[in-house]
């Protein structure tokens, strides 16, 4: 009885390990730094997760920076310039 249960337990944890392996390889493909590396398949799961955190943080920072730049633009822009037209079309569309 207990041997059957432990067999079931190991098969359920094996399935979940496979799922995680599969998901981590998908992550590997999504992170540009890893994807561009020729030996990407040898990057460990731990490194993939670390790089994923870093990548997400970088994306956050870039989005903040872009919001900054856009808000500065609205401040200093000459209303008659082509740049203003672009922003106006963004806001008026």
């Amino acid at each position, binding site marked *: 009885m207990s041997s059957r249960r432990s067999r079931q*337990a190991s098969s359920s944890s094996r399935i979940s390990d496979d799922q995680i392996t599969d998901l981590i390889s998908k992550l590997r493909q999504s992170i540009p730094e890893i994807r561009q590396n020729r030996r990407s398949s040898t990057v460990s799961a731990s490194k993939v997760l670390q790089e994923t955190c870093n990548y997400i943080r970088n994306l956050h920072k870039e989005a903040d920076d872009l919001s*900054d730049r856009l808000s500065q633009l609205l401040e200093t822009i000459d209303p008659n310039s082509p740049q203003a037209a672009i922003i106006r079309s963004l806001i008026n569309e």
Partner: protein
Amino acid sequence: MQPTSSMKEEFLKKWQMGLQIYRPLIDNTSVSERRKAIKLSADVAMASLRKGTTCWSRALIQKTATEDNFLVRQMLSGIKAETLINKKLPKVMCHRKIVRRSKKILRRRQSRSAIEEVAAKARKLVKKKTQGLRNVVPGGEFMSNDVLLIQETLDYIVSLQTQVNVMRSIVDAAEAGSERTAYYLGKLKFAIEDG
């Protein structure tokens, strides 16, 4: 998976809608308030792409609603805004029973081979790194299941890439000198249509 052109288009439309809501204020507020408005609309636009189907998008909407309830309600007026804002995120998302049971069984195993020891160490290391992920993905603190966490992370990354790509194209076009404006406008159109 990469951001598709339809994702980028939909993000841009929703973001524009958010910025329009702020339009009366844009002329009369400080730079920092404008910046906040731009960022918040971009976040809600990104989250609404998923129409409440992912944890991270629901968590992000709730978080934004605490900063600007009005904006979120206006932007989501078509998509069950009330339910998304007020829905309580449960403490633990799913598969708690399975995790608990397999943990108990793992502990009960008295003898462990060397291979199992290595696997256990690797799992522990992965556990530590997934904690870092929980800190950066919205709603991550509610995802105790690692599989769910990584699935959500994958979707969140594609959405973030969409947001940043579109924002970058707009800002680059707007900052360009007049002789390059036409170039950037074309590039923006290309970037959105081509995906």
